[in-house]
């Protein structure tokens, strides 16, 4: 049996984790996803196109260049990150909650050698997978519009994975304490939407008033946007490593929390 302490980095020290079993949980979700992925990906393809038309070509006409770039060039790479964020957070809130509280999927799994920590780890992996997949589809659309300026863009899945994992964790924590579906409204209104609006997706954070200018730095989305925009535009600098490190450290510090909170909710 593979115990937590055998995994690298002490990431999961003190947890009851068996990676092969967590992957089985991941695989279960993937199998369900495969039933509907064609329709899902289709919509996922249409949405970015609509966004790019409306925001970029529509709104962009009225917006002067930002940081010396046409508005659509500035916006499109950031939408890759935010679209990925939304797909992960929807999956890890509404859908995870359905599995946990209504379908009792978690209960069924833990009646086998799978532990509750394996279940949570499998869910987090799946949320990450979805974020990377949807973000990558968005990247493909951005490329089709001719907005990818550099082969560095091939590395986009890396920051996407880190960011999606961070949002999987945040969403899972909320899901584990949510009394019902309505409470996810608060999560989106209070946490996700403000991040979407103020983390440098639509305008540079330097434009924020001095008092709040530092706040975006504390969000995963801001760092992902920084990295992805630079990769897509080919403006790669060393500071990107700091953004990646921020995301990695965020994951290291928080990944155990949803395991504890889910346990607290389900095990009585």
């Amino acid at each position, binding site marked *: 049996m593979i115990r937590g302490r055998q995994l690298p980095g002490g990431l999961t020290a003190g947890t009851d984790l*068996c990676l092969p079993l967590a992957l*089985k*949980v991941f695989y279960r979700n993937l199998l*369900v996803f495969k039933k509907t992925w064609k329709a899902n990906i289709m919509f996922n393809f249409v949405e970015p196109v609509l966004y790019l038309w409306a925001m970029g070509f529509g709104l962009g006409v009225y917006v002067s260049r930002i940081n010396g770039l046409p508005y659509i060039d500035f916006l499109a790479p950031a939408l890759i990150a935010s679209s990925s964020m939304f797909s992960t957070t929807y999956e890890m809130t509404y859908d995870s909650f359905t599995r946990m509280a209504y379908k009792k*999927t978690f*209960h*069924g799994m833990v009646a086998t050698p799978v532990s509750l920590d394996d279940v949570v780890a499998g869910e987090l992996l799946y949320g990450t997978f979805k974020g990377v997949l949807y973000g990558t589809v968005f990247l493909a659309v951005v490329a089709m519009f001719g907005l990818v300026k550099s082969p560095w863009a091939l590395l986009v899945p890396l920051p996407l994975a880190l960011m999606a994992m961070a949002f999987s964790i945040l969403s899972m924590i909320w899901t584990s304490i949510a009394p019902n579906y309505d409470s996810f409204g608060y999560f989106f209104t209070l946490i996700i939407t403000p991040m979407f609006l103020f983390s440098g997706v639509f305008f540079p954070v330097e434009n924020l008033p001095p008092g709040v200018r530092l706040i975006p730095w504390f969000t995963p989305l801001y760092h992902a946007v920084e990295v992805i925009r630079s990769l897509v535009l080919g403006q790669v600098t060393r500071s990107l490593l700091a953004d990646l490190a921020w995301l990695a450290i965020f994951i290291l510090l928080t990944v155990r929390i949803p395991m504890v909170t889910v346990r607290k909710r389900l*095990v009585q």
Partner: protein
Amino acid sequence: MTCKTGDTVVLARGLIKRFGDFEAVRGINFEVRGGECFGLLGPNGAGKTSVVRMIYGFSPVTSGRLEVFGEDIGVKARSVKARIGVVSQEDNLDPELSVMENLLVYAGYFRINRDLAGERSREILEFMDLADKAGHVVESLSGGQKRRLTIGRALINRPDLMLLDEPTTGLDPYARHLVWQRLRKLKESGTTMILTTHYLEEASQLCDRLVIMNRGEVLEEGSPEELISRHVGREALELGSGAGLDQYLLEGMGELVKASRVLGEDLVIFTERGRELDRRISERAAELGIEIRRRGIRPANLEDVFLKLTGETLKGGREFTGGGSCD
């Protein structure tokens, strides 16, 4: 890996489960042996599910001792769970997946390789009479088919112990009988089972031994026949009269009456010899000038045992009033 017949599979000593201040399981003792079907019979809220959840490690033991295959489930959760098959009270199949996929995915949680999983799944579907449904999405199954699939899914790891928490609750009588048939076959093949139920018929049809539970306590233990003969005898004589029958109708009947209960205007008398008692009572009623309007002799059952022990019915509620037991 199967357990030898007669080995102790589950052992509970002074087992307690508390939720906050509420004690759902109040220091119970029982022992389940290899090859038997052991029942937990009791009404809703008796604590059956709480016991089952402790056995497969889902719910931590508050205090007392609980050993499964001689191990502490809290310590050896994975290896113990690998040998158990759980059919929980509420359905938790994957509704979007097909019947076959449900089995294969579940096999994955036990790390059974694909070929073996496929082979076992086909066998299980055959056994559970679901072979023609293999490709159907679970959402499209009837309640009885879902239950059979849930039971089949619990067999995927060839468990040494099956936990069945109210396996037929909510099913119609026909679907229930189909499930009973399968469970009886499993029993014949030597699978150790723990079955919880509030249907006396289910308990008496399937269980070799059982405990009667009420409000977190074990009231009695034994085989269905033992419990019935110990507490209520072989037969129940039910007498009805418009006026309300009195206990003193029973005076002088001596050993013939094992116990009795007043149910509304009826009197239920438990006895070993129904016909003789019936005749003696008729004579006495005639002497006393009491008119008996309805009378019937039926075999005594576990429901009667529960009634006698608690004054309540298994469906909950106090249908029996004034229960003057005179044993």
